[in-house]
């Protein structure tokens, strides 16, 4: 009885082995259309990899954390590649940045719902254009560290709009497409972001003195 079982077992192993070879054969056949995939990847990389710095910069400002920013950029590139077939426009950077932004907000919402609530409070604090002394701000305008600190304190919607305008040099129309707001709103939001930044700068300068 025991012997019989053993023989059966041995013949099973034989089957499995031969079956496995068949699978490999099919796989080899399949590697033909793979060329199309590789061509698509090459085309995607050629179009989108030049914008890696822009993608990373936006994610880094939004998430304020290097590890999260890198995770988001990787995820965004995968998402972008999956929907690359639907991209026919000429502005690859704006298209990619839209995906980076969406992915960043997904993470922000998931991990830190609280982080986003700060943006609501902006409506309460009416911005006063003349609150900070322009001379004092001008004096410290060269202090990059001061500007970084002040900008990181801003709400997410201000951080992203300042990065898109001042670092990527995007037009109001492009920013509006990425952030999904009309161009007129881009102007007013940018104005509020700058006013708020100046306020924070003035506060920082005041602290130092």
């Amino acid at each position: 009885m025991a012997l019989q079982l053993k023989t059966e077992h041995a013949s099973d192993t034989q089957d499995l082995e031969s079956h496995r070879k068949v699978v490999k054969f099919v796989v080899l056949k399949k590697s033909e259309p793979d060329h199309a995939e590789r061509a698509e990847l090459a085309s995607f990389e050629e179009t989108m990899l030049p914008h890696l710095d822009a993608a990373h910069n936006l994610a880094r400002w939004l998430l304020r954390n290097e590890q999260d920013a890198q995770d988001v950029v990787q995820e965004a590139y995968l998402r972008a590649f999956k929907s690359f077939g639907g991209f026919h426009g000429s502005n690859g950077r704006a298209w990619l940045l839209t995906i980076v932004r969406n992915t960043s907000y997904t993470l922000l919402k998931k991990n830190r719902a609280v982080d986003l609530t700060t943006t609501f409070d902006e409506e309460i604090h009416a911005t006063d254009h003349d609150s900070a002394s322009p001379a004092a701000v001008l004096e410290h305008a060269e202090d990059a560290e001061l500007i970084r600190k002040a900008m990181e304190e801003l709400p997410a919607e201000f951080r992203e709009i300042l990065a898109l305008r001042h670092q990527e040099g995007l037009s109001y129309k492009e920013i509006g497409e990425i952030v999904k707001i009309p161009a007129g709103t881009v102007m007013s939001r940018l104005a509020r972001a700058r006013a708020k930044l100046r306020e924070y700068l003035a506060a920082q300068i005041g602290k130092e003195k």
Partner: protein
Amino acid sequence: MNCEEAIELMDGYLDGELDPITSQKIEQHLRDCRKCELAYEAHTALAHAISRGAPYHKAPAELRQRVQSSLRDAVGVRASGGAARENHALLTSPRTTRRLVLPEIPWNWLALAAAIILAAIIASGFLPRLRPPTSDQFLATQLIASHVRSLMADHLTDVASSDQHTVKPWLDTKLDFAPPVVDLSSEGFPLIGGRLDYLDNRPVAALVYGRRKHFINLFVWPAASDEAKAPKTITREGYQLLHWADSDFNYWAVSDISDGELQTFKRSFEQQVPPH
């Protein structure tokens, strides 16, 4: 053009985003109005300072490699489950493929194995009991994480107040529902404040209560069905979770106090909540 309009359009003018006619009007105004001209100079200086001063976070070299290799993996998976790797394995010593025996078992064998396991589960009558707790367990993980994060990140409350008439209106404006908020100081659970949180794919209210040196996070969101449910207790990683629901809301209380104390908290809360 008056000063108010000029200030309003100044950022657009500064960024060169206005139409030529409006731009000209602003230019004219700046020539005539010293105050606005000074404001414009300050605006320009600030804009330049941001452009020059804000650090540009360039992608590190390893990120490029990471992105590229994850894209390659995605292509491999989509094409044939890693055809390139298998071809490679065929060319090299067959011994290296032995570690891959499990993934290479044909799918119908795996399906058979899965069918047997499934049959065993159904036969044991385990499945009906297993399913509802799994979603609760998942939620419990989220709840504990949220509770721990609120203590760790020093962000216990968005609105810190022991006055329910401050906390409630604040939450009402942030949410699409109006959670009940009551102060339980007289029962030994002082209200500390409220916070917005995100759980179970929706924004929820988190009410924060104190108990001696401990904190209780009470998460509240609208109930899916309008029937009251029997309370449920979960103990995980040293945390107590207590769940109940009334006709309007789902409640999850999370804390490191004892189950008995959490039950007391629930009773006090229910007594104080005005009937709907």
